[in-house]
């Protein structure tokens, strides 16, 4: 089981509260997790990754285990603690107010 923490606006859009949990078959990568996330919550398509190119939207970043994974190759493996559900993958808005 993979845990994903979404920004508040995307939780509202997906109609969920708290963390999202996903089942990912095969290797646990950013791409496979986001594919599973969008398959379970189709309304999130295009809001985290661009349609078509699947590029990360410019003002979003990915973190896990205190590491910035935003620039990681999409097919690179995520940390083992994300893959076994001990730590969540955090999807974070890159720009705050102020």
């Amino acid at each position, binding site marked *: 089981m993979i845990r994903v923490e979404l920004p508040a606006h995307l939780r509202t859009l997906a109609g969920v509260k708290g963390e999202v949990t996903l089942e990912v078959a095969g290797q646990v990568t950013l791409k496979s997790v986001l594919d599973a996330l969008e398959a379970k919550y189709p309304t999130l398509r295009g809001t985290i990754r661009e349609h078509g190119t699947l590029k990360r939207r410019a003002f*979003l970043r990915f973190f896990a285990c205190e590491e910035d994974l935003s620039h990681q190759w999409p097919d690179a493996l995520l940390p083992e603690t994300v893959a076994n559900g001990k730590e969540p993958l955090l999807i974070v808005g890159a720009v705050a107010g102020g």
Partner: protein
Amino acid sequence: MSKVRLLVGTRKGAFVLTSDGKREKWDVSGPHFAGWEIYHVKGSPVDPNRLYASQSSGWFGQVIQRSNDGGKTWEPVGNKFAYDGVPGTHQWYDGTPHPWEFKRVWHLEPSLKNVDEVYAGVEDAALFRSADGGQNWEELSGLRGHGSGPHWQPGAGGMCLHTVILDPSDPQRIFIAISAAGAFRTDDGGKTWRPINKGLRSGTIPDQDAEVGHCVHHIAMHPSRPGTLFMQKHWDVMRSDNAGDSWQEVSGNLPTDFGFAIDVHAHEPETIFVVPIKSDSEHYPPDGQLRVYRSKSGGNEWEALTKGLPQKDCYVNVLRDAMSVDALDSCGVYFGTTGGQVYGSTDAGDSWTPIVRDLPAVLSVEVQTLA
């Protein structure tokens, strides 16, 4: 008893304002989609409970929302706006080529005949159509493919297709406007398009007779006279009596030649409303006085309507989609400001009352007149 429903898009959510036919007391519902920019909300003329809303965010991109109960509940529908083929380039502000990139939906125009058909005007400028209630979107690429596309340039707010007008007398005819390319018309349902900018005069552009490059801010039409169009441009208010083939200036005695909003009285096709704004970068009413100007002669002769509007220290703007009229016997006129006020008039502009004063900056106001 008739009812009126205002659909208000703001910088931080959508609001639905409802009243009975007296239009004295209003219920305010919202914010819907709190925190998101709502560029436009519009109802279907076929089924007024079917609403479409453009919800966008710099963080999360574009979402289209649909309601089947007049805005009580909403469901997200399709948000994939893919340009047809290789999008190519338009001109950037400095004249260099810049790739076409989708940014947001500025305007949603539901079909006059089919509740599930809806058009979307987007930035970077293109027109999309959905035939399934917003689930899937297809570009009408003949517009962007018009030979002038590589020469289009953005206005200060981006290269947005902000106006979509469907001709009630001819389902094949659509008018659109783009900042700052100009106005275009199709007579074959969107396959081919022609620029309709003859007669426009635009500040310091090198060729005043240029086919494109005119900063059209908004166009309005009365449904009983689809060949007559009224335009608020960056420079001047214009009218056309031949479906845009040529334009004449009708700014007359207006205090400025600049503004965004323009609309036509529901029952008097020669009565039009504008809100003059100070150009170029100030973008607030001249002299701090918020005045709607009305012409009962289709332009040229204008009267200031001030009763109930602030006449000192007012420095708000009224954006292009932020004015609308209802269809009650005594025509109601409504507009929203970047200061968060929505003003209404139940007597065609003679007097005004604030319906709400403290919303987020208003981007759009649409009215539904309900049986």
